[in-house]
């Protein structure tokens, strides 16, 4: 305002009251000029800005609604392979509405979807370098397809949003889409991504700095799992079920796109996949959720999967999740995936303190070698598979170290997949949760091939690649189709232990309820104490997670999954 205007304002100001209120209002400038964010209208002009906006989709993956926790937590205890304390995850009661984390992955995946929709909507409006634009569309399509796949497997038929959200006067009313429509969206997105994404980290606009982003083989690989799911038990009863064999074949074909990519390959060293410094450069990992040592950019896996030891990762382990004995015993002894000191912790300990030897005390610091030495000279005074609330068995050996000190050591089996000795806190652990890797795709290929053509050489070749890497002999020749199927399913459990696949696999295989309720005889490692006070089994409604209260409260068109 210049001086003259100011004077006019001051002189006229009081008089304008008489002239009318509206006239007065125009004298004062109350427009907001934000200083901490950008106006969307003035954004999205350059390729760099478009890349940043796509990066914003990835940003939604490592959050406290998603992969820091609880995206993996809610999957952890819904199978018989991992020993879980009763309070962890959904505990012995299974999924129930109202549990604090139930529904967080719903919000998390819709956040991914919304950001992908926003980016795709903006890409329609701007003109960028075509190669870059195609790649960015590919990333957005891949991430949206991935998010809908996560939603469909967890919650069933979910509302579909494929356009940028514009407020429509409701607080988000949206009906469920038919299950087949959700899967159609997933397939379309991943097919589009497979065409749009660079074939490797040297094509289109990708460089090695883009490791961590999906490539075309990532899209094909995820598509193969989607097709296998579409052929599975979860879609029984929908119109898709009729095309079961067709989807098995599509899974096979999609997986072959990966095997024929030319660069995607198995790591020779299994545990290198889980080395936080190496995994991002692995040619086996097809999609992973990026983690760093920055605060709140790493999953809490260390705390739960590691033995009680402060040195194995930020925050230290707490020894909550270990391998169940019955499952451990299904591995062949030579299997490198349970090799002590390599894939599972060789020794860890808890001890009684000298002053009060009766109370077990978690030991601070990791000194496995010295413990081994101590144990070598100590007297074993007991060995027991012990249970949490007598519900289940894990266990430890008890050694008397002399001087009133005891130490309790393995065989409680803790995986070494999530170790980051340089992290400071539990949400700084740099272990990338692996969503899809080549071994998984090979096992999808083996399974799909077996379903379509029976246990062919191609099927054997796919599973044997995985077995060879684990230090095992080739699978016994001459299996029947059913035997081969069982072998692949067991191999998946061994290969992908603690990689968040167990619940989805069991549901797809149609065996989850039977196994959780101990009704399938001969399932390797399924035995559970039958008359336990805390084992309640699972109910059919728990095949799907509850729709979160926030969705029910605001979306008038949604219905809760039956049973909750």
């Amino acid at each position: 305002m210049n001086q003259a205007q100011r004077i006019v304002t001051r002189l006229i100001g009081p008089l304008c009251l008489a002239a009318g209120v509206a006239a007065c209002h125009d004298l004062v400038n109350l427009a907001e000029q934000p200083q901490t964010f950008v106006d969307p209208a003035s954004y999205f002009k350059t390729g760099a800005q478009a890349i940043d906006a796509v990066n914003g989709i990835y940003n939604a993956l490592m959050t406290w609604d998603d992969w820091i926790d609880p995206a993996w937590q809610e999957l952890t205890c819904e199978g018989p392979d991992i020993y879980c304390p009763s309070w962890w995850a959904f505990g012995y009661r299974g999924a129930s509405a109202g549990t604090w984390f139930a529904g967080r992955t719903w919000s998390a995946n819709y956040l991914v979807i919304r950001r992908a929709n926003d980016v795709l909507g903006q890409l329609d409006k701007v003109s960028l370098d075509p190669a870059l634009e195609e790649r960015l569309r590919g990333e957005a399509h891949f991430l949206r397809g991935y998010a809908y796949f996560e939603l469909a497997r967890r919650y069933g038929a979910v509302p579909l949003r494929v356009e940028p959200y514009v407020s429509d006067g409701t607080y988000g009313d949206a009906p469920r889409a038919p299950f087949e429509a959700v899967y159609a969206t997933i397939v379309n997105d991943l097919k589009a991504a497979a065409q749009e994404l660079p074939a490797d980290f040297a094509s289109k606009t990708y460089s090695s700095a883009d490791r961590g982003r999906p490539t075309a083989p990532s899209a094909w690989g995820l598509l193969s799992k989607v097709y296998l799911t579409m052929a599975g038990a979860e879609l029984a009863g929908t119109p898709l079920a009729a095309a079961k064999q067709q989807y098995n074949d599509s899974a096979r074909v999609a997986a072959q796109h990966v095997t024929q990519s030319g660069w995607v390959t198995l790591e020779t060293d299994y545990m290198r996949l889980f080395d936080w410094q190496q995994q991002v450069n692995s040619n086996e990992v097809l999609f992973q959720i990026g983690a760093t040592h920055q605060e709140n950019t790493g999953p809490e896996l260390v705390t739960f999967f590691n033995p009680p030891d402060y040195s194995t990762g930020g925050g230290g382990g707490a020894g909550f999740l270990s391998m169940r004995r019955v499952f451990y015993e299904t591995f062949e002894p030579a299997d490198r995936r349970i090799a002590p000191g390599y894939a599972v912790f060789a020794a860890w300990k808890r001890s009684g303190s000298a002053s009060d030897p009766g109370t077990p005390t978690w030991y601070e610091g990791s000194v496995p070698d010295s413990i081994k030495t101590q144990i070598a000279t100590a007297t074993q005074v007991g060995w027991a598979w012990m249970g949490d609330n007598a519900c289940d068995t894990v266990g430890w050996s008890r050694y008397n170290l002399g001087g009133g000190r005891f130490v309790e050591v393995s065989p409680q089996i803790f995986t070494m997949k999530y170790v980051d000795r340089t992290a400071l806190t539990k949400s700084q652990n740099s272990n990338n949760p692996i969503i899809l890797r080549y071994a998984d795709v090979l096992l999808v290929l083996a399974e799909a091939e077996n379903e379509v053509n029976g246990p062919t050489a191609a099927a054997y070749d796919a599973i044997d690649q995985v077995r060879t890497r684990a230090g095992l002999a080739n699978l016994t020749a001459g299996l029947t189709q059913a035997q081969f199927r069982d072998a692949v399913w067991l191999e998946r459990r061994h290969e992908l232990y603690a990689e968040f696949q167990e619940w989805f696999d069991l549901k797809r295989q149609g065996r989850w309820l039977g196994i959780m309720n101990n009704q399938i005889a001969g399932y390797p490692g399924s035995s559970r104490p039958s008359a336990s006070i805390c084992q309640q089994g699972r109910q059919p409604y728990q095949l799907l997670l509850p729709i979160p209260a926030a969705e029910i409260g605001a979306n008038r068109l949604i219905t809760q999954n039956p049973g909750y």
Partner: protein
Amino acid sequence: MTRRALGLGLIGVLCGAAGLSAQTAIGTITGHVTDSASGRPVVAVRLSVVGTDRAAVTAEDGGFVLSAVPEGVQRVRAGRIGFSAREETVAVTAGQIVTLNFAIQAIAVTLSDVVVVGYGTQRRADVTGAVASVPPDQLQRTAVVSLQQALQGSVPGATVTQGDAAPGGAIAVQIRGVTSPTGDNQPLYVIDGVPVGTAGVSKFTLGPSEPSFTTMTTTNPLSTLAPSDIESIDVLKDASATAIYGSRGANGVVIVTTKRGRRSQPGQVSFNYATGMSQVVRELDVLAARDYALYVNQASWNVYADSSALPYNGRLGRLTPDSVRALYGAGIDWQNSIFRSAATRDLQLAFTGGDGDGSYAVSGNYFDQNGVIRGSGFGRGGVRANLDRKLNGIVRLATNLAVTRSKDHLVRSSGTEGTTAAGIVRSAIRYSPLPSEAFDTTRLANDPRAENQAYRQQFGANPLRYTDEVQESETVTRGIGGVRVIAQIGSSWSLESSLGGNYERKGVDSYFPRTVYEGNNTGGLAIVSASEYVNLLNENLLRFGSGFGSDHRLDAVAGFTYDWNRSNWINNQVSKFPDDVLGSNRLQNGLAWAAPQSGVDVWKTASWLARVNYSFRDRYLATGTVRSDGSSKFAANNKWATFSSLGLAWRAKQEPFLRDVGFLSDLKLRGSYGQSGNQAIGTYQSLATVEGTTTVIGEQLVSAVYFGRLANPNLRWETTTQYDVGLDLSAWGERLMMTGDVYRKRTDGLLQSVNLAPNTGYPSATFNSGEVTNTGFELQGDLRVLTGSAGGPSWQISANVARNVNKIVSLGATEQQFANRLGAGGGLEVNPFIEKAGLPIGAIWGYRTDGIFRSQGEVDAYKSVQPDAKLGDYRYSDLNGDGKLTAADETMIGDVNPRYTWGITNRVTLGRFDLSALVTGVIGNTIVNSSRLVYLRLNGSGNLPRAYVENAFDPVTNPTGTYPRIDGTRQGFGRFSDAFLEDGSYIRLKNVQLGYELPSALVRGVRSARFYVNAINLLTFTDYTGYDPEVSAFSNTDMRGVDLGSYPQARLFTVGMSVTF
């Protein structure tokens, strides 16, 4: 005055210049009116020239001007409620000014007779709205530490809750209920005409887990104001009164006037000093060592029934409960370790006085309060200068400026992480009384507090580490003040222009050493955050006041105000320090850091306002107010809103038919209707955003952006419409005074952060949506049992009671939504608070318990409904009878809003002694006692109050027990139920003071000297089982009434004196 002169005057005030001289017609009388007892000026005295229509009212300095008085000897009458009327004669000469001073004598009344109503003062008798005043002696007769405490129990309709009793901690005040589930719903505080603003500083940790409070204590933005500086407090409640504060008046307005000097008053020095000790009101009776061991054994026995498995079984070197007692006696009393007797000091030195043209009041104060939890304390020092100067016959200048600095040493009394960082108070209960469990004796030589690692893993560091080793302080530097120019133009017109403002700088420095959970894994954790808030306020007012004939009187004020606010903040978090020696002082020594965060907000408000008071024959009164407010916070086309109100009053006593009713001293019926607004949302909420962040691609952080918020082009003001009907009555020479009000407030267009359905990908958006009503009544009475006439004893009882019913009429398109969960870990992952149409804000939602299963038969019979049923567990009611326990069986199980709030003050004087006692209470509110989420597990993990163990059901030893069976396997409840709720009603002897006034002749030069002893929180009667029922851990409105192991209330004894020279 001509119309032209009015126009010129208007222009003049806005230009900040005044060059008009009053016109003299015949003769002029000027003078001052003072109180004959104290010599202080008396404001709002009506002066009239008998037999003419000439009249005037004294200004704040007691001065008046009667112009155009006909020549000759005139009788002038000075009258004011609360004072005996007086008449003087004076000879008026044409063209001359004569001086006439009055000294009028106060007649005993208790309610302040002049009320500050916002942009002016009014005689109480003329007020048409609901305005409550804190009795002037309330501040002086109660050793309050903060302004809000003075409201407790003395202002009907004000619910005052000290949520966390840490020294300097925030005190929540709600006037006539809460109007909105968002924001804090606190009233607007106006100090000497300047609304108090504040800006928060982050007390969240940025990791290592979900963001969590470093301390739950929020500091009181008004704790920087020394109560001894306060002259009066007036609370505006209904729309007629608050509409003049339009946009910000919806939650009521508290107007604070600080002390000023008096013109022509000889200088005087007053000195106040008080010192005292405080102690926690109660400690909880927890299990001593042997009982604790027995309880832990019981938890194991009830599961395994195997004596060899008992933790204290005497085998393998283990102790037995009896040997525990032999070795340790009662064990460690952790409450005794963390609580202490804490000293308080308060001193103030003030100089006041004035000459014929000006006055001054300059004071300095220092206050220092140790907290009853070790390591906590609050200190404040400040100076204030209130100066007035008459520049010439027309222009007067008034300034006030206060600068204070306070430092609050905070302790983590409660935490939202339930287990390893549960907070000092809860860990003092939970920590084992057995030294061998709590401590690692092998390491005690190096570290006298070395915990046993098992214990540490489970319960976090011991509470003494948090009191003594964690450092957290909040330092606040605040200035508030302004300068005001007042031009008196003739006897009827005056112009005011002011420039004022607030400045606040806040810094929070925290350091968590390695010895506690937060710093253990991070190698020491320092969080240093700072914020700065600047507010500038310009007000320009034109006033008019005149009588017309003997029947009519008109007072009016109109003006324009503009305020500008800027707040910025920064937050740094650094960890991995080489050692814990330097704390947060050298951030650059740390090796790891979270990305610093910062932000800037700017907002502006502009207002046009006008108010007219009209009275006809002192009998029919009307007040009309209109204010048009613009706020930058709203959407482009909705920035402005106009709020208006109308108040009517009928002073029935002035009617001829009541004039002769002797016992009735005054009777006034009031009614008002009007609107006020609320803009309590953050900045930029109507705008869509593109926000920057980072993400991880290939182990590297790369920049990223996302669309952060939905635009809301319809965002507008939240509006509260209020009806009020009131009655003021005094009788028997004002020995009985009563005020009653009935009101209904309807707030619509609620500014809400509405939870959107997550399928939109947006968690929430700010909408105007929904409607809330508050309906209630307030009753206040003062009874002078003994009047103290002729130097005899006096006894006065003041009592008030208020009832408010809060109801959400609608939430807009949302049917219901829940407030945030209480915390993480320790069972705190619950969302007890629901917002739902038909229920109050503060409704608690959950399952109803129906006793506990007392036999296996009962369990088996109910197993189909409650599959996890167990002997000795709670049975939950299947309310809809569908044979299943589902969300449909949840219902409203409590309400944090009290049904009644009340207070009674007794004041007795006898000779030179005076005694004042305030009893206050609330009735019918529910408290979420979050500790019960843990205690009721009764699983042998951690210590707990004795009553839970003694009342635990056992089929053999205690078949009638009301709490669940002791069970080592119980990990939690899975369902939030009424078992975790308690009634928060209480009656409290809040304040007692006994004073003695020294004979003034005793020491030469001393005008007055008074000594007193004071006790705060002397007695409390309640059924609540926690430390204290006056508790509310969270400051958000939708999560009030949670006891999270908050800082307990203390009992404070002080002795003090005030001396005037």
